[in-house]
């Protein structure tokens, strides 16, 4: 069992006029096997929360704490966080020209497992994971995310999650840009890892359609840099119907 605990997290970005605060006291606990949906208006700070947990250098933590099974995540380097079991599927995955997907996946797996995976079983493992996500094997030879369509990038994120087997995953709008079939395929992938790894999930989304595939245990409304309401799956339906007006101060 793993437990990610976020307490009173305040995060800002450096601007010319000093640090601009974006997160204003986030409290959230995610246990293995739980799905926490986070829904909130554009610009409310959802991606900032995701990046801060993963350790993106752009963000400055001004106060609060993040721990994974008691270990201080904020003290860890970005790669150490991944090694500790955190995974971030990014809203906008980054292109890395000249680095093939095959090389990237193998390097990452080697880093996380502490030894290079055996060539024979590894190639099969990758092929298998790709075919489950309906990805053409030719992607192996392409540069990481370069020229991938929006949907292909998202599949590639979930492919990495399947292979790297994290304990807690943050999915930042993984559903955006997916057509109906891709949404189902990707959701099944997430559910597979959840079942196999007893994965805990923070699922950032604007739409309830993904929540029909990946059933949330909790829904959190995110506005103005913090969680402003919590509830069960029914809260998501209400948000989709009514929007965020009641949470956003005029």
């Amino acid at each position, binding site marked *: 069992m793993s437990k990610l605990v976020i307490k009173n997290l305040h995060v800002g970005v450096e601007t010319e006029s000093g640090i601009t605060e974006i997160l204003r006291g986030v409290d959230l606990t995610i246990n293995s096997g739980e799905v926490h949906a986070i829904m909130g208006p554009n610009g409310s700070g959802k991606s900032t929360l995701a990046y801060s947990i993963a350790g993106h250098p752009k963000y400055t933590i001004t106060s609060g704490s993040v721990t994974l099974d008691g270990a201080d995540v904020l003290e860890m380097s970005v790669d150490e*966080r991944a090694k500790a079991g955190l995974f971030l599927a990014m809203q906008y995955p980054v292109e890395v020209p000249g680095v093939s997907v095959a090389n990237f996946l193998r390097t990452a797996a080697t880093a996380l497992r502490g030894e290079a995976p055996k060539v024979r079983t590894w190639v099969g493992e990758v092929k298998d994971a790709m075919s489950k996500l309906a990805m053409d094997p030719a992607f192996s030879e392409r540069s990481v995310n370069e020229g991938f369509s929006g949907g292909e990038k998202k599949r590639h994120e979930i492919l990495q999650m399947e292979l790297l087997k994290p304990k807690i995953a943050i999915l930042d709008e993984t559903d955006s840009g997916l057509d109906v079939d891709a949404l189902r395929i990707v959701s099944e992938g997430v559910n597979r890892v959840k079942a196999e790894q007893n994965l805990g999930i923070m699922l950032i989304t604007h739409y309830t359609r993904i929540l029909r595939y990946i059933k949330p245990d909790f829904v959190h409304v995110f506005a103005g840099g913090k969680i402003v309401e919590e509830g069960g799956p029914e809260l998501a339906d209400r948000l989709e119907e009514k929007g965020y007006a009641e949470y956003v101060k005029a």
Partner: protein
Amino acid sequence: MSALPTNYLTPTGREETWRFTPLKRIAGLHDPATSVADRISISLVGANRPGFKVETSPANELPPKSATDDAVTQRIRASVSKVTHLVIEKESVIQEPIFLKRSAGSEKEFSRTVITAGAHSKATVVVENEGSATIGEEIEIRVDSGANLTFISLQEWSANSVHLGRHHAIVGRDASFNSITITVGGSLVRLLPTVEYSDQGGSAELLGLYFATGGQHLEHRVHVEHGIPNGKSRVTYKGILAGAEARTIWIGDVFIRGNAEGTDTYELNKNLLLTDGARADSVPNLEIETGQIVGAGHASTTGRFDDEQLFYLMSRGIAMADARRLVIRGFFGEIVSKIGIESVEERLMTRIDNQLAKVGE
């Protein structure tokens, strides 16, 4: 040894084309007062094979087909008595690459080479420059109609070498000229990869890669002259710099003359600075004298590591040093992998790795 007539101007360093080059470091190759050996420094690796041959011709029997205002090239033309000529016969398709190897002497020397790719031929030519040299050279590449020539020039010089070169392609009707220029060695290398079109429908791809470490001066002055309608060109040069006084210059002159309707061109230069104290100059220069073109564009970037790329890789558990290495190798690999000759690709990547290890990457 021959002393040379001075019927052209000796560069002073103030000229636009010489302003980046430290003339003190080019061993007087630009200066008529310097005496320079007249010997053949380039030879075929292995024997002639069906479809092509290498021969030596008296210089007056193989005059240049292109004009140049480059003072060093003019000196070379005035000075060499013999020219190496690689002739690829028309319509012959040569599967295995043709290797030409440079073995320079200990003296300063000049060299002229002509490569003729006969009509509808297809071949890959690799020119390998290694070891120590102080050399001025011209390679004129004549790509006849319908021919497809890949020209790979490798500058893997040792640290003290000085190399001034003009690699000029004349692209014929519907011909394709694909070049890959790799410069990783030498104290001072100044190359002029240039292209002109002799007829319509020609296409040129110029790829380049340079890696300068402390004290190296690596200069590439690309010039594509679209003076004929319906020509196509693509230029992509990438550079990495590391260490104090590492210096690179990239000039990309692309001229689309008034009659060159239907031209399609794009040029790109990207430089990655690994350390402080290195300096990359990048000067794309696109001049367009007609509106009737398919496309024309240029881009140039010079910068440090992309933080987003490093973050992405590290967020998958890859340590900082390994992430940097992946990004750098990827940066190089994009060009090196186009060579398509495994032994050459491996040799280059190993050399690059060793140079990176020396600068602590």
